[in-house]
């Protein structure tokens, strides 16, 4: 025995003698069967970690209210100062627990008049742990001890993986200005494609063209799923795709394509922005429609025309055709009869 160890033991004995430290049971045995598991092994995300251990049998290892369980995480993990702790399997009675952390050492205090853990493996779940960077963390950097038993570490290293996003509900055709329905959902997954219960991850949807006017971001729930229930695109587009991304996670592949069109019923309002530069000025705008969402529309069916610049040449579309896919174009004529080519088309869906 070295002199240093001898001195340390003597110092501890003094602390115990003066009442500053509690003396362990004489020659206490360590807990056994220690494991650290999580439903979210994804790096740099917030996870709930379940710590399972088996106290020594008999009264010597039994835990009751006011007893403490000390859980130590690898120092690369992030632990909140007062993490939520839930006694789980193995515990009996009306167990509750509170916890405080110092660094990555969490001290759990059991409560509940009938709470107890005896002769069985017990599990406590510690919420709000921030996973470190991906990697394999040595088992002996994790440990569990109790008021009754000394510390023990898991037998296997704790592995933190990279994560990725995946569409659960991809986008489907929708209408401009209306939230896409069904809502797009995105799941955080581990590298193996397993759902990772990474809560609080901010996921952002990015369209292949244009912009998402609202609801482009959503936060994952406790299941690691983000639901974009208000995602709205105000401009029409054909063949759009979405990509979901989140910091530290691999983005999804582009979604299947979808269309955003304008829902039209009889009485729809058509307007147009047109200009004649240094020319004689715009005299009128006429509107036409053709069947289908895309393609040119040079010989379309007339809808109507307007010479009222103050209303942006507003025309009310009555007598809409049968329900289906159409496109609408505008043709502008200036005051000296120069006629524009048909404009780009706006895809509409007649939903009479």
């Amino acid at each position, binding site marked *: 025995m070295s002199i240093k160890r001898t001195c340390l033991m003597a110092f501890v004995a003094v602390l115990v003698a003066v009442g500053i430290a509690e003396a362990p049971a004489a020659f206490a045995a360590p807990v056994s069967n220690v494991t650290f598991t999580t439903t979210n092994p994804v790096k740099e995300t917030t996870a709930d970690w379940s710590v399972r251990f088996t106290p020594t049998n008999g009264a010597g290892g039994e835990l009751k209210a006011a007893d403490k369980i000390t859980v130590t995480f690898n120092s690369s993990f992030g632990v909140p100062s007062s993490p939520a702790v839930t006694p789980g399997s193995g515990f009996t009675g009306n167990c509750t627990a509170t916890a405080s952390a110092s660094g990555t050492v969490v001290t759990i205090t059991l409560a509940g008049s009938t709470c107890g853990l005896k002769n069985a493996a017990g599990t406590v779940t510690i919420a709000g742990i921030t996973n470190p960077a991906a990697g394999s963390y040595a088992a002996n950097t994790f440990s569990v001890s109790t008021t009754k038993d000394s510390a023990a570490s898991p037998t296997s290293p704790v592995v933190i993986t990279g994560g990725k996003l995946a569409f659960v509900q991809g986008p489907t055709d929708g209408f401009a200005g209306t939230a896409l329905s069904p809502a797009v959902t995105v799941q955080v997954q581990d590298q193996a494609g397993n759902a990772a219960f990474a809560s609080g991850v901010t996921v952002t949807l990015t369209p292949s063209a244009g912009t998402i006017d609202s609801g482009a971001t959503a936060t994952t729930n406790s299941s690691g799923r983000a639901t974009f229930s208000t995602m709205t695109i105000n401009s029409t587009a054909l063949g759009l795709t979405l990509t979901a991304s989140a910091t530290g996670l691999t983005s999804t592949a582009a979604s299947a394509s979808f269309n955003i069109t*304008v829902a039209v019923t009889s009485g729809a309002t058509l307007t147009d922005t047109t200009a*004649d530069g240094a020319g*004689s000025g715009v005299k009128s705008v006429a509107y036409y429609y053709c069947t289908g969402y895309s393609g040119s529309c040079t010989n379309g069916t007339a809808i109507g025309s307007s010479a009222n610049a103050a209303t942006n040449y507003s025309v009310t579309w009555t007598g809409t055709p049968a329900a289906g896919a159409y496109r609408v174009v505008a043709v502008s004529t*200036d005051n000296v009869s120069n006629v524009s080519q048909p*404009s*780009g088309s706006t895809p509409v869906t007649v939903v009479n």
Partner: protein
Amino acid sequence: MTRRMMLMLGLVALVMTGGGLAWGFWSAAGAGTGSAATGTLAAPTPVTASAPPGGGTVNVAWTASARATGYVVTRVLNSDGTTTAACGTTQASPTTATSCDDLSVADGTYHYVVTALSASWTASASSANVTVHNSHPSVTVDQAAGQADPAASSPVNFTAVFSEAVTDFTSSDVTVVPATASVVVTGSGTTYNLAVSGLTSSSSVTVSIAANTVHDSFGAGNTASTSTDNTVTYDATGPTASAPTATSSLAYGSFVGNATVTLMDSATDDLTGVASVAYYRCAGATGSCTAASWTAIGASTSSGTSFAVTTGAPFAADGSYRIVAVATDAAGNTGGPGAASVVTVDTTPPTVARPTVNGHQ
């Protein structure tokens, strides 16, 4: 008887003291003491004949001859010796005067013989040759060949053509209106050019030659000039063009589209009238538009259409243009460009966005 003899002797002595030709005649009858008388009839020399040119009259004069009781005047045509009683005298009806006018004498060279009569005696004398020239040179004054009328520049040329050569035609013989103008006469013989210059304002220029101001070689004065057209309108001032009007089937304000543009102008001229109007354009809506920068559009001589010129379509490349008119009068005077009219060519259709449907594009 003695007195008769003395008288006869006196007569003889008187005749003998006369000169020249003498006819002697004796009168003797009977026996006894007779007396004789002698005398002569002198020729009426000198005889002068003069013919003022153009008059057809020859003034014949002679010296009275003693004893002559009358005179007979005979005109002799030198070329063939034809004699003609002159001054209405005949043997039976001589004149007692010592001069006479031989009227209505035809052109030719003559000499006159005056015969003094005294009973059966005659004595004649001839004049020198006299030439009778009855005609007066006539003259026509007209615009010179090639002279523009109206004319925009001076000198304004006229041609005077005399019926015969004249010898003393000068600019002072020419009457010109306006009187302030000056005339330079060049030429000779029968044909002259009258160059009128010194014209200070637009006016009609008229040239004529008064009678008896120019003479032929015989001294006969001209008759007053006659003319077919001896007036040239001198126009020193160019016409005034107004701002052209531009019309098009595709017009909106000053804009015109991809269509023809018809330009018209109401140019005016104070004297000779507008002959043509030309149109020009300059790029831009402001500033002057002169030959230094303009581009010709076209010209018209049709006053009935207000000198309309129709352009192609489009009028020009897109943009604003100033259009000016330049008028030329019948005299060839060209006025300055009138005020500009602005035309903006617009062949570019509007730009148009795709329509907004129910507030969405």
